[in-house]
């Protein structure tokens, strides 16, 4: 019984730390994706500006 309780509680422990890692990684990946998209936009716009000049 005590083993089963310990195992059940370990699931909560793993889940809690999983939430932190998952949340942080997803946010970092989102930031990277947004940065990549903005860099592409900047490159395209700067090329347009240079062409106009």
């Amino acid at each position, binding site marked *: 019984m005590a083993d089963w309780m310990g195992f059940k509680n*370990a699931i*909560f422990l793993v889940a809690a730390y999983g939430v932190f890692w998952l949340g942080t990684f997803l*946010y970092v990946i989102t930031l990277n994706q947004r940065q990549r998209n*903005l860099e592409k936009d*900047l490159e395209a716009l*700067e090329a347009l500006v240079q062409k106009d000049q």
Partner: protein
Amino acid sequence: MKQRRDSVGTALTIGSAVLVVAALALVFLWAPLEITMKEVQRIFYFHVAVDWVGFLAFFVTLAASVAYLRTHERKWDIVGMSSVEIGALFLTMGAVTGSLWARPVWNTWWTWDARLTTVAITWLVYLAYLMLRGAIDDPQRRARFSAVYGIVSFVTVPLTFASVFFLRTIHPALFATSTAAQGRMQFETGLASARMGMTLTFCVIAFTVLYVALLRSRIRLERMADRVVRLQQEILS
């Protein structure tokens, strides 16, 4: 166009990753076992640290909002908004990790306890901040409204912190002076208690560095977005 290498940003990112992994190692390999809750009490270290970052982020927004209203400089609007985004993420993680801790310890995922209720109010108030920004098109009006809202909404932070002292609650109080309210955590020796305190302190420092690294990246991203808008306007004019 290639972006300039951000060496400070890279150092912060690597530093925060190393510190958070070290904090994880301390939590699982060095922190003592609590007598009643056993292993599941280890949730406490990251739960407190993510909530700390959430509230620190909202304090930074308060300071940036005051600075914006005084100077009307765009940089303070960027800092305030970026900090709320990170704070909302960390407060969400704090609520989820808290819930995962409450289930085996309190036998419930959620209860309308004073601390949990005030945290829920804080979370909703700051989500509304992000929604408010999305609803206003004019950049200057958006920045002004956000700054005022960023100041007013901070009222929820001390309210949440103080709720465990002034209201009836089952949530542990980290800084309580009476033993009855001191988190109800018990360790076998005083040395074990000290190790718990040191591990928690290390986690808080590691997460603060992580917050600074994320905030820096988010601010950089917003500045880049501003440049895109400026170039678009230049081309259209």
